Structure formats: structure tokens, C-alpha cells
């Protein structure tokens, strides 16, 4: 994967999006609120240099992207990057925990259904996982809030760091955070669970068909050793790169989930920005989310080279 063309491509696409902003006076939609759109238009014109030739505009855009300068928010006039930076930790905590949970659950499920392929266990897990994949995450979040928040009262339904954690010891505040993470992480994981475990299943099935597995069985190894010592290592290899397929989905999911659970992350920031027509912040959030995905993909590539010696010597 070539990083520089990717970054250029991302800049180009976001540049096109940014220019869909109501820049021309013919846009009727924003005419309903002439004052706001007039100011917004003027500020956008200034920010993106909309009165310059398109190529110059793109040059300016690239320059901004290179230093991650997205201008100031229309709402509170603070630099967009500062607003994103303070929201980033919450998003990262949520998504990294979700990624861990997904791998922890999906890999065993994938292995067990590959080993018992086409059994009724395999069929039932397939349907259950597909149902998880088909569940709208915003709805699942609401159902969790309804059952575990309102009815049972087991988990808090909103927020990440309440004011009173200041008075907690480190241990207590970590526990509080875990408590508050439970429902958002569960919702975030649900969507990607199916993809990863299906992938693990087919990877395992493919490995189990290899000759060296037949050899291992032929020399009389018990099934446990065959599966967990010989097959598993090789079946896990492609799973490392599948992070590249999960990451964009995870971040997308956190847009909705952060909004519902009042989680102070980047997705929620993006939602607030959209609701307030805060264009610089919207663009900043989209670009940073995409950069994060790209970074994740790079890490996955590097990790793959580390775990698979065949790649390293190429």
C-alpha cells in the first residue's frame, strides 16, 4: 500500500466534498436562514480561498492537510484540531476496547465452527452472527439502554467521566470507566463480530484441508494438538490483516454509538458539528477519522510482515 498516493487521494476527495458547501448564492436550501448562510459563506470563502482558481484552492487545501490545520470552528471559534484532539482519547478507548473484545470473541467462535463445520452448532452460530450483523446498532444501543439501564439499572446509560471521578482513587475511577464502557463497547463490537468470525472460520477450514494437517493426523497426533498447535498458527495469519476491513466500520459505528451514549468522542463531535452546520469541524472530523483508518491499515500491514516470515524476505 502506497501511503503518499493514498493521502493525496483522501485530500482530493475531501476537497471535492468541502466544495459542496453552500458557496454559491443559488443554493436555495440555506436561503431559509439567510443570515447564517451569508456569514457561513463568507467565512468559508475566506477559509478555503474560494475566490481563487481551483488549482490554487487545492494547493491551499493540501497545505492545510499537511499541517492538519482545518481552520476554526464556526461555533466557538476554537481551532478545529484542538477540539478533535480533546475528543480523540474517548474515541480511541472505545474502539480499541471494542477491537479487543471482537478478536477475543470472534476467534474462538470461528475456530469452533470450523472444527464442527456444517454441524447444527455451526448453523446456529452462523444465523446468530448474521443477526448481529443485520442489527441496526443505534437500535441495539437503545434496547440495551432500555433493558440494562432503565429496567435492571445495572449500567449507566450516558457519559464517560462524571464530575465525581475527581474524588475517586485511581482504581475506583478505572472501575467506573470500565462500567461505563460496557454498553457502548458491546454495541460497537456487535457489527464486526460476524465478519471476523466468518473469516476465521473459512481460514481455519482452508488450513485444515492442507497436506501438513493430514500428515500431522497420520502420525497419530491427537486432534487438540493438530488444531491448536499446527493449524491455528497458520489460520490466524490472515486474521491480522482483516483489521483493515473492520476499522472503517468500527469508526463509522462509533459515530452513532457515541451520539446515543453521550460518549465525548470524535463521532459525537462530528454529529454536533453537522447539526450546527459547522463545516470546518465536519471536514476536520472526516479527515482525521480517515487518517486514523489509514494508520490502522499501515499498522496491520507491518504486523502482518512481522507475523508472517514469508512476507519479510520479499
Amino acid at each position: 500500500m502506497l501511503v503518499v498516493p493514498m493521502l493525496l487521494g483522501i485530500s482530493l476527495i475531501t476537497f471535492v466534498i468541502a466544495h459542496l458547501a453552500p458557496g454559491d448564492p443559488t443554493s436555495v436550501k440555506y436561503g431559509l436562514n439567510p443570515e447564517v448562510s451569508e456569514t457561513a459563506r463568507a467565512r468559508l470563502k475566506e477559509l478555503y480561498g474560494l475566490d481563487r482558481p481551483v488549482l490554487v484552492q487545492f494547493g491551499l487545501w493540501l497545505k492545510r492537510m499537511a499541517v492538519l490545520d482545518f481552520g476554526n470552528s464556526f461555533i466557538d471559534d476554537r481551532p478545529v484540531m484542538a477540539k478533535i484532539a480533546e475528543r480523540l482519547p474517548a474515541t480511541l478507548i472505545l474502539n480499541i476496547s471494542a477491537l479487543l473484545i471482537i478478536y477475543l470473541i470472534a476467534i474462538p467462535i470461528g475456530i469452533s465452527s470450523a472444527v464442527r463445520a456444517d454441524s447444527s452448532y455451526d448453523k446456529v452460530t452462523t444465523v446468530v452472527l448474521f443477526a448481529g450483523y443485520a442489527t441496526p446498532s443505534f437500535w441495539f444501543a437503545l434496547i440495551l439502554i432500555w433493558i440494562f439501564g432503565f429496567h435492571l439499572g445495572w449500567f449507566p446509560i450516558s457519559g464517560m467521566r462524571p464530575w465525581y471521578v475527581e474524588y475517586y482513587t485511581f482504581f475506583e475511577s478505572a472501575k467506573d470507566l470500565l462500567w461505563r464502557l460496557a454498553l457502548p463497547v458491546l454495541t460497537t463490537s456487535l457489527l464486526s463480530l460476524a465478519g471476523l468470525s466468518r473469516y476465521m472460520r473459512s481460514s481455519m477450514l482452508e488450513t485444515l484441508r492442507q497436506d501438513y494437517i493430514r500428515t500431522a493426523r497420520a502420525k497419530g497426533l491427537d486432534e487438540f494438538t493438530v488444531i491448536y498447535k499446527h493449524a491455528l498458527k497458520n489460520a490466524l495469519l490472515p486474521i491480522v490483516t482483516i483489521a483493515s476491513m473492520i476499522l472503517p466500520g468500527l469508526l463509522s459505528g462509533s459515530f452513532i454509538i457515541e451520539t446515543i451514549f453521550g460518549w465525548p468522542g470524535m463521532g459525537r463531535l462530528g454529529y454536533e458539528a453537522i447539526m450546527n452546520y459547522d463545516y470546518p469541524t465536519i471536514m476536520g472530523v472526516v479527515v482525521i477519522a480517515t487518517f486514523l483508518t489509514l494508520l490502522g491499515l499501515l499498522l496491520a500491514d507491518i504486523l502482518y510482515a512481522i507475523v508472517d516470515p514469508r512476507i519479510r524476505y520479499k
Partner: protein
Amino acid sequence: MIREILKKRQIVIGAMVIILMASAAVFAPFISHFDPYEQNLSADARLQPPSTRHIFGTDDLGRDLFSRMVHGARTSLSVGFIAVAIMLVVGITLGVLAGYYGGAVDFAVMRLVEVMMCFPTLYLILALLAFLGPSVYYVMIVIGLTSWMGLARLIRAEFLSLREREFVVAAKALGATDMRIAFRHILPNALAPVFVSITFSLGGAILIESSLSFLGLGVQIPVPSWGNIISTGRFYIESAWWLTVFPGLAILFSVLSFYLIGDGLRSVLDPRLKR
């Protein structure tokens, strides 16, 4: 092939659910005799639990929930179908171009695919909608324009292997144009993965539409869609669970049905998955 497809239980069940929902959507006014827009703000009409009169209960403005859901099926399914149609046009065109011509065209299309796949889809869609303004038509277009990458890749891969075959050489020798070879000779042989991709995309498009409508950027009230019914329902979740539960189940079942059909088709059409 048809017999094999009909033997797959997951395909048959999925198709039955979809046909049921689609016919409910088509015949909406005949199925529910309540007007989905008629409000009744009296206290004994608002937020009524499911009963024999209103089988799914009523919403915060006293409208019949079942009727709104049946009409919502119209919105959600049609958004899904049109978005997927747009995706097909873009995905097939770019996939054919890349796979048939190869070289620089292929390089350009594949880089575009990689870049597009890097964007977290929902961020991209929401940013586009924030700039364009909320509208059902934009939702259809934007979903179509952000979901074609997988299909383009599939088509390209099929073309790369098919374009060297004898029947293509024969067609070329007979003087067929590039367009004719690509669309009349090669494409029909590459359709199997397209069908799988269509069913999965239909499910995905319905999910995205419902999320967008839930966030208030998709189908605008008072036009009912499953997503925007839930976005009202969330404020009443403690007292009126039916407003959230029923539309959510409708989304879940329709999307799940599409996925089951897609998964079933894949195992019938892909000889590598057979044992």
C-alpha cells in the same frame, strides 16, 4: 441451478420474508386502514400500547404505528433498491473499465477504490449529507456512490481472468467492438458475484438509510421510515417500548433476510465453497 437455490432453506426463508415485506409496502393502503399521517392528540389516543384496534400501538401523535411501519417499508425498501441500482451502475462501469482495459485505467480505478475504502463510510456519507442537506434523494445517491468499491473489485477480478479466454479472442476476431465484447460476452459470465453483492448491498443500504433517518439526516418526518420512527421512539423508550422495538425488528428482519439470501447464493454460485 434454480433447483439448487430452492433447496437452500436460508434462501427460501429470506426470500419469503422479503416478498412479504415488499408486498406489504406495495399494497400499504389496503393492508392498514389507518392513515399514517392522521394525528389524534387526545390523551386516550396517544402512545397507546398494542391492542386489537392498533396492533402495534400508536405513536406520540396518536398515529397508528402499524400503518406508519407499512408505509415506512415503502420508503426504506425503495431507498435500498435505488441506492443499489446506483451502486451497480458505478461499480460495474468502473470494474469493467479496469478489468477490460487494464494498464493505466486499471491503476487509476484501483487507487480510487483503495482511497474510498479508507473512508469510514458513515463519516463520509454524513459529511456529504451535511453539505448537501437532508433529502431522501441525496441519501439514495450518496449511499450508491459510497458503496460500489467491493463490486468494482469483484467485476475487475472476473474480467481479468475472462478476457484471455478463447471466446473473447473469437469475438475480437469477428470484429466485435470493445463495448460489445465487454458487456455482451464477458459480463454475463461474471454475473454470479454480482447477484451476491446485490443482496448484501440491499441489506447494507437499508441499514445505512435507517441510521441516517435515525440521526435526522435521512428521510424527514412526517414521511415515515423505520429509522425516523425509532428516533422519535427513543424519547419514549421507558413508557412506550413498542415505538422502538417494532420498527427495529422490521429493519433487523429485512436486512437479515437479504444477508441470508446473499450468503446462500454465494455458497450455491461459488464452486470453491462446495465440498
